[in-house]
């Protein structure tokens, strides 16, 4: 009997299988973002996207400008913390987007060929599980955890303090409040054993947007947008997993000075490969692309994404020190 060996198993299981990722507000999030972990865990995500398309990836409303061509390098760094609230799993996170964007956009009859860079709008996220197993308040809870059917309530709020130049249509900051209400849902399919886990995950969400009263001197309004992300994820080994990802965007019709644009009705497909580098480090690589994007008003976007998440929990770090 080697209790310390079991401790390590517990910690490793806890950290490598749990996604202490904060939300990635600017595009669909990879599968396993909302897996639960032991309360008191922490994570620092670093996310990099290389994006091409006809819309600004920093703008979650994905306002489409016909004929636009945009390339962007989007990076996000953040911090997430898991905790227990009323016996349920909860997570609070903050994300700081940053990056570069360049391209050609035509709006209100003017064509802009521009580039910009800097910090975007920080986003706060709060996620609370409402259906499924209770919070993993201690190690025994974590050992016995299986999601079964797990449903969360998710709220995001972006603070409009990112870099913004009102003379240009492409910006890192959005100069308006916006946020999201969602319901991350996980269906466990089969055993919850590392190397054999399969999940079907959905994230239905509604994005709500405030008004940008200085969008190249004009007023930009956007209707609420519905977004549904779906992921079928499957372990390949204890440390590697993959997912088929799909997204659907609907609504989000924008108007500039009262002149309405088109509603979005687009779908995207992609895949993700995830690998657990160590007890503390998760790596994912993914690609996604819109599919019904041939119309002039259709959103067209594809992106490569690499995420690196460093997670830790005081227990595992203490145990490692004791082992030395």
């Amino acid at each position, binding site marked *: 009997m080697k209790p310390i060996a079991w401790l390590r198993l517990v910690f490793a299981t806890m950290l490598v299988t749990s996604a202490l990722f904060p939300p990635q507000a600017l595009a669909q999030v990879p599968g396993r973002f909302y897996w639960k972990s032991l309360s008191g865990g922490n994570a620092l995500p670093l996310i990099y996207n290389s994006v091409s398309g006809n819309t600004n990836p920093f703008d979650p409303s994905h306002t489409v400008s016909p004929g636009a061509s945009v390339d962007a390098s989007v990076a996000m760094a953040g911090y997430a913390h898991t905790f227990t609230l009323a016996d349920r799993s909860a997570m609070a996170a903050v994300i700081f987007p940053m990056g570069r964007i360049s391209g050609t956009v035509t709006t209100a009859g003017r064509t802009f060929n521009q580039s910009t860079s800097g910090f975007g709008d920080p986003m706060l996220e709060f996620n609370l599980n409402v259906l499924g197993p209770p919070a993993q308040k201690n*190690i*025994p809870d974590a050992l016995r955890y299986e999601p079964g059917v797990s449903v969360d309530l998710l709220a995001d709020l972006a603070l409009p303090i990112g870099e913004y130049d009102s003379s240009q249509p492409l910006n890192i900051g959005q100069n308006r409040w916006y946020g999201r209400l969602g319901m991350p849902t996980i269906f466990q399919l089969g055993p919850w*054993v590392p190397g054999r886990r399969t999940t079907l995950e959905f994230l239905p969400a509604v994005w709500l947007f405030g008004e940008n009263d200085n969008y190249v001197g004009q007023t930009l309004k956007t209707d609420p947008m519905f977004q549904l992300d779906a992921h079928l994820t499957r372990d390949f080994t204890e440390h590697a997993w993959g997912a088929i990802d799909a997204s659907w965007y609907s609504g989000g019709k924008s108007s500039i000075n009262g002149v309405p644009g088109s509603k979005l009705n687009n779908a995207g497909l992609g895949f993700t490969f995830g690998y657990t580098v160590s007890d503390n480090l998760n790596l994912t690589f993914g690609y996604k692309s819109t599919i019904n994007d041939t119309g002039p008003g259709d959103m067209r976007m594809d992106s490569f994404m690499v995420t690196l998440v460093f997670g830790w929990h005081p227990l595992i770090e203490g145990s490692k020190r004791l082992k030395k």
Partner: protein
Amino acid sequence: MIGERMNRTNMTLLAVIAATVAALFFAPAPAQAQQKRPNIVIILADDMGYADMGSFGGEIRTPNLDSLAKQGVRFTNFYTHASCSPTRSMLLSGVDTHLNGLGNMDEWTAPNQTGVPGYEGYLNKRLATLPQLLKGAGYHTYMVGKWHMGKAPDQIPAARGFERDFSLLDGAGSYWDMTNFTGASPKSVFTEDGRYLTKLPEDYYATKTYTDKLISFIDANRGDGKPFFAYVSHQAPHDPYHLPKDWRNRHVGEYDKGWDAVRQERLKRQIELGIMPPGTELAERMWFIPDPIVLAPASRAILGKKMELYAGMVENMDHHVGRLIDHLKKIGEYENTIFIVFGDNGAEGSDLFEMIAGSPGSRDYLFAAINWSQTHPNAWGDPGSYVGYGPMWAQASMTPFSQYKGWMAEGGIRNALIVSGPDIKRPAGSINHGLMHVADLMPTLLEVAGTSYPKASQPDLPPLIGKSWGPMLAGKVDSVRTDQDYLAWEVFGNRAVRQGEWKLRWQIKPYGKSDWELFNVAKDPAERKDLAAQNPDKVKAMLVAWDDYVKANNVILPSRGPFETLENVLPQRVQVEAGFPPLIYKRQFVPPKEMLADPKP
């Protein structure tokens, strides 16, 4: 094994007495001709502990086994052997292990035992087996489950008296498929009605399939008027703890309190039930097992989960025993069936998997990496997982005794026994403390069947060592043994003699002293106090019995054994005393509130 210097003369005398008792107890011949003889069902649980069933103080839910206890009699002083095949061989032959072919476990036959008659590693040909004799007496004979007494065509159940069988010939294996443990023997071997199986039935799960098969055997011969003898040799709850999913989570968190608390609770119930006398002490927790209260919650949870699985194994087995009982009731055979329930030895505290696959780079390690590497707790119970619950829970299973399977402490050889059925004159639900032995089953059941051991006509047969329970079941005596009768055991070099209240025990270090120890197991069933130094005459007298046993049964102490290096592996043995050292038990000092103060500036 069993004392009483049996020679041919007193064997004949015994046969005469047995026949007389049978005639008195089991109904006169004219009535027998009209009344069908009782069916006999032996339910043998593999590695089940003394204190696991509810009727013996366990918190594990065993309503079906308990119902047999409620209608029948529980026996608290019943002895098997310390390991599997020796017990089974005595059960089916009535002959001491050192004469019946299982003088040692086949897997551990020592160099100095190899080739010696009595140490063949299978039930040898010099025997008349219980199923052979019952078959000859007009019984149908069925076996399902684990055999572990030979694999060759002339050694399998069909060759040793069973008319129908569905048998696992190995000592253990997967409950889900034919996967076994070693690279040398990667597949378990099964037989059905004397043919070696190339594959297992659809929807195979050992405990369920064994029960299904037995029910089908019984039904196939229903109506021909013959009684049946069924040997239900369950693989459960032997590790690996393979278990259907819906049986795995019925005790979630219940065992996080740890083995000491479970042992205390079980002993309390045993005293309340009358299984153990008031004042019984628990055996000392083994020195290399930590006090669970000093373990982290994670460790307790993960170790507790092993016990959760074990409890599920026992409960699942009980469920299938219930299916058999229900079926017998449905076909009108229940009331005319004798049930005999017990475990084959102490609970398993050794790490069998570690012994097989513990050396990285070995052939068996690589075999395990492919076939037995589902180590995550959430996979426990699945095919490819191997969970055993370890010495701490084995000792809980054997409450209040010391040690477990493989050893000669009471935890290795004493087992819970239930007997129920027609013609038992003892009060329903009663408890008997008479000294009994697994080899008693042969003469007892031959008597039930109205037949006898054919020693007179086949003088070369080895002598039976047991005593019929007939007079005791008839309520005429409380024990079939006197204080002069002795029982004796030897396997792996460990040895013991029980005579009256006394037990003389020799065990290899560090579980023993590599010397004789003496215990009064009536007053001290936990074997806490070695009284050898205070009672040299008793030691001497019991050594005479031991020498007699060795001589009568050709006991050859093995030159090698599974525990020969144990002393070098385990921590040095120390006495375990509650609350020591205070260093790890003393709780935070809380000063009086009225004396609390902030620091002065």
